[in-house]
């Protein structure tokens, strides 16, 4: 029985152990971790919530993108998906929930009503949740198909990929030093 060839490497470390080492930038690693485990805070207010539930179910599985953990607690979630009509009566409650989410946080406005008030040009409907909180991705549709919501989530993932995470965290320090 011939013994297997010894692994020879001219680097100063054992490639059997350290062959699984990747060199990358901290930003890229952090962004990769964040975008692949976006835990949603489902702000399901109206009909779009049904499509959100459908997206979370088995046929359109949002879990493939790391977002199956629908944390109904804002303290434990990353992205707030505002799905449905935001009435003025509910608006401040949505803002309160948004304020309770820890950084980093993103917002997806799902559907026509959350993006711009939808078909409800009236005295009782807030004309878009972006009048209260900063929105990262708008998804059009009434309601948007689950595939559209998944595409919106993928667009958010692409946006997160391009962020400067460490610089954002240390923004005040950088501004002081600069």
């Amino acid at each position, binding site marked *: 029985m011939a013994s297997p060839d010894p692994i020879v490497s001219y680097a100063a470390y054992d490639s059997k152990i350290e062959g699984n080492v990747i060199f990358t930038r901290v930003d890229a690693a952090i962004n990769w971790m964040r975008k692949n485990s976006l835990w949603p805070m489902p702000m399901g207010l109206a009909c779009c919530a049904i499509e959100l539930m459908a997206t979370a179910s088995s046929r359109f599985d949002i879990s493939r993108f790391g977002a199956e953990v629908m944390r109904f607690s804002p303290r434990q979630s990353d992205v707030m998906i505002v799905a449905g009509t935001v009435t*003025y*009566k509910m608006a*401040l409650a949505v803002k309160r929930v948004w304020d309770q989410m820890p950084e980093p946080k993103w917002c997806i406005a799902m559907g026509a009503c959350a993006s711009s*008030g939808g078909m409800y*040009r*009236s*005295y*009782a409907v807030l*004309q878009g949740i972006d*009048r209260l909180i900063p929105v990262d991705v708008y998804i059009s549709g009434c309601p948007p198909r689950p595939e559209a919501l998944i595409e919106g989530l993928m667009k958010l993932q692409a946006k997160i990929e391009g962020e400067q995470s460490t610089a954002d965290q240390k923004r005040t320090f950088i501004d002081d030093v600069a």
Partner: protein
Amino acid sequence: MSAEADVLLLRETFGAKILETVLFRGEHTVQVELSALHDLLAKCKNDLGYDMILDISSLDHFGDDPRFEMVYELAPVDDSKHLRVRAKVSEEESVPSAVDIWKGADWHEREVWDMMGIPFTGHPNLKRILMWEGYPFFPLRKDFPLAGRSTDMPDVAFTGVAPLEGGPFVTTAGGEDTVRREPRARVVE
């Protein structure tokens, strides 16, 4: 008894207080004076068997006097007959509450109070139900714009004016074809 017989019985009982009865395509409507409204509704529930209050609604005849009108839809639980009771209400008057007759009248009357501003006497909890306590307007009145008015109650709620882009888009009923019936901006005189 059928609704037709009920209408005749009510006419006999209330006489001149019933201003008008209408029969349209099988639907019976009784128009009654506000002073006899509560007694008539009680009679409908207790003697004529209208167990359920299906709906309580209100109309705003802006420019007419009396300005408002209350509409009650009554039916028994087996849905064998329907009766509509209407009563005109002027701006200063208040309507006797039907909560002591039907428990289901509670939230309907709260909605009428919230949206139209008609007060009810004898209501156990006359608070706003759709808008919030402290909202200064009555949205379904004819002199309130669809787009709304700006208000602000800090920590409770705020409202803004919705962009209507030229007015509510309404269709013209009875247009000859779909092109003519397309919704267009209605110019409010």
